[in-house]
């Protein structure tokens, strides 16, 4: 019964706020795909229920916006991957060994480890606390309010440490993409 209520609740909130979500997706860069993405958000709600991942949702509207936001990040990720594959294909075919395509998996693996090392260095360069706070928040999934208690600092200090970490990682990514 409770599950049915929460589902009805989430779907009702979706229908009431459809236009608001749509505006968000358009502003978020979805363009013509905004309606398709709205549909995907709707499907995710339905899946969530049939998949029994569900417990009651404290803030249904936020849940919907967050779902939409994550869909946009996934979409951006796959566009970037497609671009990279295309570039890799071009590089391979410009090279002197046509027909030899992918790098061996060990080499790809090393690239991943190299990336991990650069990320760790970038964070460590900001200091021990911002690096530790970033890991706690993004790797362990601890909420910012709880981190303020854990580290004995104010919430605004947590936010400012994370902002510095995010900006530094975005810069690192730009550098890596150019290389």
């Amino acid at each position, binding site marked *: 019964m409770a599950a049915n209520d929460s589902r009805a609740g989430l779907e009702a909130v979706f229908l009431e706020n459809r236009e*608001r979500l749509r*505006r*968000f997706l*358009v*502003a*978020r*860069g979805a363009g013509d795909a905004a309606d398709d993405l709205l549909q995907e958000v709707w499907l995710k709600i339905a*899946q969530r229920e*049939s*998949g*029994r*991942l569900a417990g009651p949702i404290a*803030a249904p*509207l*936020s849940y919907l*916006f*967050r779902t939409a*936001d994550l869909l946009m*990040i996934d979409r*951006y*990720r796959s566009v*970037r991957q497609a671009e990279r594959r295309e570039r890799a294909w071009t590089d391979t075919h410009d090279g002197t060994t046509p027909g030899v395509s992918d790098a061996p998996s*060990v080499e790809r*693996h*090393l690239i*991943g*480890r190299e*990336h*991990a*090392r650069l*990320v*760790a260095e*970038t*964070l*460590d360069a900001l200091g021990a606390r911002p690096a*530790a706070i970033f*890991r*706690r*928040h*993004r*790797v*362990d*999934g*601890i*909420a*910012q*309010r*709880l981190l303020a208690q*854990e580290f004995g600092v104010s919430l605004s200090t947590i*936010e400012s440490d*994370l*902002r510095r*970490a*995010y*900006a530094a*990682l*975005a810069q*690192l*990514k*730009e550098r890596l993409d150019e290389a």
Partner: protein
Amino acid sequence: MAHDEAIRDAAAAWAVRTGDPQFEDWDAFTAWLAADPAHARAYDAVALAVADAADVLPAISLPANDAVRPGWTRRRWLGGALAASLVAVVALGVWNGRGGTYTVETAPGETRVIALADGGQIALGGGSRLVLDRRDSRLASLERGQALFTIEHDPSAPFRLTVGEDTLVDVGTVFDVTHSAAGMALAVSEGAVVFNPDKQNVQVDPGQRLTSASGSDRYEVGLIPLAEVGEWQRGRLTFRDAPLVQVASDLSRATGVAFVVAPRAAERSVSGSLVLDRVKADPRTVGALLGVTIRHTGEAWEIGAG
């Protein structure tokens, strides 16, 4: 340039706010995005950079944690448990134990790839728990669940894996191990693995699968198509004459959806191959594909003998 940096900093500030489960001000965020298309692009770039960084970090961040401060590991893990219960998102747990070991754990339905210091890697399936030794990357223990090991072979330092009371020693490269209450199963796709070198001393070759029940010295060796070794990592599970109790346990671990077996049906065997994403989207598909009945009870999906 300065303008781009200002946008990036603003995007980072929004990403910090939206990334917290308690964020609610989506209208203000929409207004900021709508003000300039460059804002959404910058936000995407920050969000992806941060998500990717968080994905690669666990593989190498572990040794550094000790340096942060004493008592850290314990708080880490208590805090993690607390947050998981609050937001109902069970994140992957990595925490440090006694004597240089650390544990990597996945929630049901989650998978994780762990890079080893010597270049090997371990893909950990859902609902699994693996203990590694920071001082010796050639030692590991699969406490429960399933993992696909890709090990760099080194004759001078063989890779040793303990699984319950059994020991596996690699003579080669790629093998998959499942550890459940019922026992263990080992399938090899490349190289070779030796089962309990100090006891039965059985070499398992590519295309072979060895099973051994808990608390027993007996074992059985059967055949498995190479493509099926570690196929869970590619989103598929195949059962061959598998008892329903194993089907329910493997499916729950791999999908994060709870499956149980109807009373008295546990020993009934079935065969079939399932695409995990479809099972996640609609657990009823299990019924048709394995020729069993499936119904939703209060807590879980119950598989019956049909």
